[in-house]
């Protein structure tokens, strides 16, 4: 993986725009705060944050107990956003997510009681334990940023960020998300076990829940939306677009994958790379940004085939990065 540490020179270079260093400082602060709760996972935290800045949704896939829920909590708390958690179970109904209309006795007819989806950060916990019906209710809301029930369309709050967690699909009792729905998530990340040092710190330190309550928001909603707008405007040169296209073309042409990346995936890659560049304090995207977000963006979209399947342990994204030269 390329070095993702921020180059101070780059910051100085873009000093003309006073907004960017300020924003970067804010982002660093949040990442630092969340990192103090989820130890040794700064990379994943940055990816999660990039996902938020790119206005995408995040899927965290890992075994229970590695801090998936904690990460979602910490992110929401640090951002000062409204947070709601939905525990997905096999008897969950779409109404449990979207809300229901209940008759109001005072005579005003039916009144809509919004469901937990009407929050800025929604944690859909163990999303693959619910039936496809409930899953699709969530995923449609994610895609449209609005909810339509009983003929009425209601917009979801801004910003709107869904963090879904799921257990690896080989675990018992799951309804794995189909590929078409996986595509709705901008990124999928895995947390993995902490390293020895981080784990020791975790064991020695305070209870995580207490720490979570002590967190104070360090970014207001206005700034966050500003950052999201800013991320959209990060410049991508034609040389960089060439690189993105070559990456995508390789997945379509090589025999290593069942299907190539879709144009939506290419867009996702570009948006994520823009957010990453912003977090790095740059006004333009460089190939390293693309490489940094690539594992998160393509990991759940590419199904390995041919030689790659048998070669266990070869990371799909790393393989892709190595195969495609930077033009």
């Amino acid at each position, binding site marked *: 993986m*390329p*070095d993702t*540490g921020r*180059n101070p*020179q*780059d910051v100085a*270079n873009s000093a003309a725009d006073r907004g960017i260093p300020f924003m970067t400082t804010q982002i660093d602060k949040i990442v630092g705060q969340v990192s103090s709760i989820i130890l040794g996972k700064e990379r994943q935290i940055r990816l999660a944050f990039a996902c938020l800045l790119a206005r995408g949704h995040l899927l965290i896939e890992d075994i229970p107990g590695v801090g998936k829920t904690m990460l979602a909590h910490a992110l929401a708390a640090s951002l000062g956003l409204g947070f709601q958690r939905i525990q997905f179970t096999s008897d969950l109904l779409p109404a449990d997510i979207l809300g229901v209309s209940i008759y109001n006795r005072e005579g005003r007819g039916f009144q809509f009681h919004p469901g937990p989806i009407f929050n800025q950060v929604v944690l859909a916990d163990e999303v693959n334990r619910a039936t496809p019906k409930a899953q699709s209710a969530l995923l449609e809301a994610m895609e449209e940023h609005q909810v339509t029930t009983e003929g009425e369309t209601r917009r979801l709050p801004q910003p709107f960020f869904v963090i879904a967690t799921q257990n690896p699909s080989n675990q018992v009792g799951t309804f794995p998300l189909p590929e078409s729905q996986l595509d709705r998530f901008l990124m999928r990340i895995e947390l993995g076990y902490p390293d020895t040092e981080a784990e020791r710190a975790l064991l020695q330190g305070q209870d995580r829940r207490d720490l979570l309550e002590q967190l104070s928001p360090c970014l207001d909603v206005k700034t966050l939306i500003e950052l999201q707008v800013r991320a959209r405007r990060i*410049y*991508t*040169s034609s*040389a*960089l677009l060439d690189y993105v296209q*070559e990456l995508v*073309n*390789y997945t379509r*042409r*090589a*025999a*290593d994958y*069942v299907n190539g990346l879709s144009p939506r995936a290419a867009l996702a890659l570009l948006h994520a790379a823009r957010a990453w560049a912003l977090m790095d304090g740059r*006004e*333009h*995207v*460089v*190939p*390293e940004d693309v*490489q940094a977000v690539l594992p998160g963006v393509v990991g759940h979209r590419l199904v390995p*085939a*041919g*030689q*790659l399947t048998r*070669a266990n342990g*070869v990371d799909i994204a790393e*393989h892709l*990065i*190595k*195969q*495609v*030269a*930077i033009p």
Partner: protein
Amino acid sequence: MTAPTISLHNTVWLTAALALIAAPHAERLPAWVMVLAATLALWRIYLGRARLELPRRPLLMVVVAGATAAVFLYYRTIFGRDAGVALLIVMLALKLLETRSQRDALLLIFLGYFLIITNFLYSQTIAAALYMLGCVWIITATMIGCNHTQLQQGYRNQLRTAGLMLAQSAPLMLVLFLFFPRTAGPLWGLPHDAHAGVSGLSDSMSPGNIANLSLSDAVAFRVEFKSAIPESRRMYWRGPVMWDLHGPTWNVGRYYFDEPKYQGLSAPVEYTVTLEPHNKPWLFALDLPGQVPPRAKMSGDLQLLATAPVNSRTRYEMKSYLEARFGADENPLALDRALRLPPASNPRTVEFARGLRQKHPDDKALIREVLAMFRNEKFYYTLSPPLLGEHAVDDFLFQTRSGFCEIYASSFAVLMRAAGIPARIVTGYQGGEFNPLGGYIIVRQADAHAWTEVWLPGEGWVRVDPTAAVSPLRIQSGIAAAVPRTDPLPLFARGAYPWLRQLRFTWDSLANNWNQWVLGYNPERQRWVLSRVGIDEATWHALAVVLIVATGLIMLALLPLMLRTLKARVNDPVKRAYLRFCSKLGRKGLPREPAEGPSAYAARLSRLRPELAPKVSAITRLYVALRYGAGGSTAALRELEQQVRQFSA
């Protein structure tokens, strides 16, 4: 990192290229070989399309063993030309079936180039060479496709690049062809089965032999005359001479090598013969051959015999006397042999000949009488005569009375021998066709002919052609004019359509040049070419110098072209400057990985060579800003170019 896998696109290309290369072998190899190979190839494509696993090794081993056994059982060997090619094709198809990685594909491509060469073991015509050139083009395009796994390569791009490569290598090929030292013979022997199925005259003659040969329009030899071309009726190309009659069949019998004594009565005709391989020792020359070509000898009856069968196209200078007197003092043993007849055969002919002898004590008068009989009575000249029985000459003379030149020659010789005049049969070719485009004579198998020679005291051996008596047209205008129109003659031997004739001449002229200058490019020709460039001594030394100089000149000529394409590929000055920076570091053992971003590269360099860090990061910062940032300035570009120029690792 795993080896790069080969994509379906490239697999299909590879299979198609190999199929094209192997296609000409289809008519030479047994059908089962081609069917097996095609099945294996299609199986591979199917597995590739369906994204299925390729067969495992044990299964392949079984197929390999089975195929080898089948080839062995069919040919009784696995060596030699046919069996070798069959085995190669089956193994190629099997290799295709286990081709997973790029490395396998490249191996197959090189084997494909080899398979192209095997086609020349069978055919070396212009058409074959053009076809193989096309194959080289396609397989080179395939190789380009396999090597560029990362680039989006359309088939047009691949073909264009391959064509460009071939065009660029053509001058080098020409230089190597012209100036690489040549040996007199082939560098290695062809497999023993390489010359099967070549037609031509043989050492025996039965009724029907030459008529069969007349159905072939294959070229026997081509002749360039140094002086005026003799009339068609005087062109008797002498070949095997038959002495011994057994049943209906004449044989050459034993050669005898008495010094032939002859006396030229006219100025000699000088010419050069380019003889097609016919797998027999005879070299053909106009009657009467006045000199012996190198690596050949002349028998007592004026047959020119090469020391080895003519297996490759052979070119020799000749001199002949069209008017000559020879064999006046012939060996009595030979004369005795020229009188022998098999006992109790052709009794009616023998009786008829005795009657003639009593009527004409003079040899010449007797010969005239027989020829007059052929001319005036109802004898027919045809390619498809009725069948003859045990006493072929009797049947012919007294019943069927229609036949081709060999039966006329045969009957005449039997009549002469029975009448006590020594006679023998000479086979060869008569006439030939003048190609006005190339200025040479083409003699085809269809021109094959047989005539007789009789020995007259005081005059020696005299040619008598009974065919000329029965069908003067044959001798004056060639075979097409002489036989009935209904007789099956090859298209090329017919002269009916002028445009066809013109086309035929053009094509044959091309083929002749190809034979003379490409296939027949031998040390003599090479010496001639060298003398044209001012080198008289064609030593290996001189050739090496010429080779080096010519190659160098070609490289120099191609250099601007290559530089231009290199430049054109990187027409972005920013990228060019950065690549220059990278190549400077690359030379110091710090190359940039293709997939390594500039900042990542700079970080790695700073770790490995901390003293370079300030310069490296300055250049990288400029490059990244120019290439990926918005609105780079010319000043920044100049700055980058200057820093790269000054940079040294």
